[in-house]
């Protein structure tokens, strides 16, 4: 899967002769099926680089290869029909319905009418929008998030191998944005498109990218690598400062609960008698235990004091479990659930809700210290 699909070969772009070039001698390879994120400060040339790929901007010098074909001098409109393009401002055609918007490229490519119709429905379903409800609406009748979805559907309609996305989730509120990002990652798992994704938000880059290219002025690559490697081993001060102070915390979004070693705590299986419970806890030299039901599903935290204090039935004493984690959750989720937990650890369960173990601050810290850069 490490086959190069897009290659920018020593590309230069000078907008105004005499002024510094917006892209200076850029060599960039994009692998088939990967999400490559271009990230960097404003004005460093991210959009320019992206638009060079579908030749909305013509390079001053250098060549661009798509699937080993030199596309620098072929017909630009034909090239663009082969490449999906999502722009920051969405840019839906306001005078065309959602269906017509999505049908744009298939129509240009001369697909048959019924093929196009089927494809429009398929695309709307792909981005979780009900075709019957939305097909005949106009863009002004959509919310911002819906419009973004249609933008993505339109770009994917002719099933291009390559997708260029320029800050596609830029102008959206953080919650919707998070949701669209997740949806997009889910889509990409099935579609396996080759995607070049521009953002100026390092967190988004870390979340979305299989690889990240951190650019500085003139579209010069400061570092290009996987998010993990960049976070744990930034190439230079520029990259470090771009990652910001929270680089380790950002790394938490990349790791999953299954990556850390789970701790086993004392467990009690309901139904259990009070004395039996107290005895088990003290036998294990512990001060608390986790009460499980007959199916091994965690019920409550029980501690000695709570058991001694009340005469409540045992299923009602102790404290409830606020959040349960699953192995696929990120360590960031784990950290926040631990901070909420009464006992400073959180319970991890499998998909069926069965107890697997516990996740503690110590085990998390161990993982982080182990991996943090030695500088």
């Amino acid at each position, binding site marked *: 899967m490490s086959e190069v699909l897009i290659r920018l070969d020593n590309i230069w772009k000078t907008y105004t002769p005499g002024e510094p070039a917006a892209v200076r001698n850029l060599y960039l390879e994009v692998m088939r099926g990967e999400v490559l994120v271009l990230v960097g400060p404003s004005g460093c040339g991210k959009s320019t680089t992206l638009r060079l790929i579908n030749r909305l901007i013509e390079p001053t010098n250098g060549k661009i290869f798509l699937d080993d074909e030199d596309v620098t001098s072929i017909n630009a409109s034909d090239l663009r029909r082969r490449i999906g393009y999502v*722009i920051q401002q969405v840019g839906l055609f*306001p005078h065309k319905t959602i269906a017509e918007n999505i049908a744009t490229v298939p129509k240009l490519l001369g697909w048959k009418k019924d093929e196009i119709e089927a494809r429009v429905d398929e695309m709307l379903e792909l981005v979780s929008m009900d075709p019957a409800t939305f097909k005949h609406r106009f863009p002004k009748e959509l919310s911002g998030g819906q419009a973004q979805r249609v933008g993505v559907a339109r770009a994917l309609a002719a099933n291009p191998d390559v997708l260029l996305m320029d800050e596609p989730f830029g102008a959206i509120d953080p919650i919707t944005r998070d949701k669209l990002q997740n949806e997009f990652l889910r889509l990409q798992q099935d579609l396996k498109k080759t995607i070049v994704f521009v953002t100026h938000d390092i967190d988004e880059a870390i979340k979305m990218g299989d690889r990240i290219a951190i650019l500085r002025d003139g579209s010069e690559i400061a570092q290009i690598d996987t998010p993990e490697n960049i976070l744990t081993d930034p190439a230079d001060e520029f990259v470090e400062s771009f990652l910001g102070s929270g680089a380790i915390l950002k790394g938490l979004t990349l790791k999953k609960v299954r990556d850390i070693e789970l701790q086993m705590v004392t467990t009690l299986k309901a139904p259990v008698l009070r004395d039996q419970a107290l005895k088990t806890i003290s036998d294990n030299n512990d001060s608390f235990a986790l009460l499980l039901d007959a199916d091994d599903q965690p019920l409550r935290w029980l501690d000695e004091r709570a058991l001694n204090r009340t005469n409540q039935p045992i299923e009602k004493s102790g404290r409830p479990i606020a959040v349960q984690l699953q192995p696929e959750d990120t360590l960031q989720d784990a950290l926040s659930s631990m901070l909420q937990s009464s006992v400073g650890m959180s319970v991890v369960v499998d998909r069926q809700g069965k107890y697997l173990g516990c996740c503690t601050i110590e085990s998390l810290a161990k993982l982080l210290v182990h991996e943090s850069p030695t500088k």
Partner: protein
Amino acid sequence: MTLVNKTTKPQFSYAGNLNLIVTPVFAFLLTLLAVAVWNYSVFDQTTESILQPTLLRTQLWQTIVIGIASSLIVIAVAVPLGITITRRGWPRLKNFLVDTLGLAQALPAYGLIVIFYTFLGTGMRTVIYALALFSLLPVLRNTIVGLEQVDKSVIDAGRGMGYTNLQVLLKIELPLAVPIIIAGIRTAVVINVGMAALAFLVGAGGLGETINSGLKLNRPTAIFIGASMVAILALVLDFLGALAEKYLKPKGI
């Protein structure tokens, strides 16, 4: 995903629809008034000779021909011109043209007709060309504005999807500019019909003849009938323009 069930009412544009109601009402009332004046005032010999129905019919027809013909020329010239100079690489020509045509409009139409007369002599042609030049600016300006107000990101998306430049123009820019271009055309038509009243100056007839005779011979009834016919004609054409604007405007904007 939860579907947002946004009830989207059709946008009711006051300005647009008011025009569709007020203009015909106004035209109707003015017609009533003119008919009343015609039927109930006592015409003396002179008035009678000015307001001969056959004369009026010819003059009305001439006014319509002048107004429509000059407007058609304006459309045929200004719209393509506006399109051409908004293509990339023509910004200077654009400013030059807008400024020059601004000057043409600053001249009184009267002066323009006289200038054309010195070159073309008498006749309808003279008036038609003069008026076409006079009302070129509103259409040209609206064509330029209409094309330039199209959201750059929409054009960008179109090009990015693989539309050729011609397709971007025909499928995106022009449809989105249509309402503004038609508004300019309406202005031009009203100007042209109104100014066609000056056609008599170079012997091209029109309802101006009646108004002029009424003025010279001091016959207010004749002036009123002539002037209200011009006004009704202008109102009716403007109403047709408003209808065109409403139905040619792409849905969704």
